[in-house]
């Protein structure tokens, strides 16, 4: 187990930054560092969470450490034309201001190698479509925590399909379930941040 894997798995931000710099100094490429250490660490903590051995704050600490390490690598990645797992546009739908869960999903997706465009909360269908088009997104992630706003998800799905852009749509949020996701024509539903990443991976595979 590398120091970087360990730092991200344990959610130690300063240690993760130090370890990623040391890996660069040792001649590893950003892509190697991400693929060989960082993504496996996030997968490992995600597995721990899925099996009930750690809690949401542990996931968040790991995601924060991952993000801090990625900040160091990002300028180098742009120069190196590094590949990502895919591009995701994510947001909480119009009328809804809850964003804690959505931000957790965004962080976990970044941690597993996705490029994430986080549009925030109270996002209209037009903004989702514009962002997906501008960023050549692979996936749009929709979040809602209210029964009164989850209905707007169907409007977004319909608008995206009508726009003609080729993008998969996944949905999540406390009042939703897989049946609802199917009924509005979404490509997938996940009940937590960890599963959301696995779903995103499967949608771009």
């Amino acid at each position, binding site marked *: 187990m590398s120091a970087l894997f360990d730092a991200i798995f344990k959610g130690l931000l300063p240690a993760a930054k130090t370890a990623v710099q040391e890996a660069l100094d040792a001649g590893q490429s950003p892509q190697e560092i991400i693929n060989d250490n960082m993504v496996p660490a996030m997968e490992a903590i995600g597995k721990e969470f899925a099996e009930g051995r750690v*809690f*949401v*704050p542990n996931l968040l600490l790991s995601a924060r450490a991952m993000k801090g390490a990625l900040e160091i690598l990002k300028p180098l990645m742009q120069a190196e034309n590094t590949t990502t797992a895919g591009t995701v546009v994510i947001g909480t739908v119009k009328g809804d*201001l809850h964003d804690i869960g959505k931000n*957790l999903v965004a962080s976990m997706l970044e941690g597993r190698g996705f490029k994430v465009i986080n549009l925030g909360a109270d996002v209209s269908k037009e903004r989702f479509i514009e962002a997906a088009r501008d960023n050549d997104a692979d996936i749009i992630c929709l979040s809602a925590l*209210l*029964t*009164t*706003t989850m209905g707007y998800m169907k409007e977004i799905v319909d608008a995206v399909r009508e726009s003609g852009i080729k993008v998969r749509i996944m949905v999540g949020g406390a009042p939703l379930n897989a049946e609802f996701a199917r009924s509005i024509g979404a490509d997938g539903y996940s*009940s937590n941040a960890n599963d959301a990443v696995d779903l995103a991976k499967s949608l771009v595979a």
Partner: protein
Amino acid sequence: MKEVEFTIAPEELSRQSVWFAMGYRGSTPEQRICDMAEEVIDALLPAAVVKYMYRLVPASKISPTAITLGGTVFNPGGIIGSYLDGMTDACIFIGTAGREFDAKLKEINSEGDIVTDFIADSIGTVLAELAVDRLERDLRPGLNLSMPYSPGYCGWDIREQQSFFPLFPPEPCGVTLTASSLMQPEKSVSGFFAMGEKLIRQPYHCEICKNSKCYKRRKG
């Protein structure tokens, strides 16, 4: 109609309630997470002026799923309805962690640290619930009192907030309602305690609810 406000010192805040809101059920987070939470509590609590407003109104159960509160008909559904046999009165309430707290929460959110943001959000949930706890402690109805029930929970359609809020003066405790029935400030709570001489207070039976993601969910 009565309005109450209070502040709470960091040492008065139940840490078990904070851990519960953070997802720990009967356990304590590891020390570094506790330490982070203590920092957030110290930063947030001076900004919090918790408020609640309540009214005692006539109430009745008119069908297995429907009730009246202060003359207005609501449909909280069968889960809540099953707890309301014998209801003759109700204490309807709105509580909030307050606008000042909400502003502080947004400030923390804008700093982009997702761990701190999550802890702060959990503390806000506890403060809003604390308003309900204080109200319950203050109530001396002379009648049996139910658990509190809120639009948006236990199968009660959140859109009924639109009928619930008019039972209070405009912007009770500074709380407003969006078109999507979301309360602002975000850390606010609304609902009612059923009261009645023959009413039997029953614990929440989360095992019969379909919302497995409810933050209030008990094990079972």
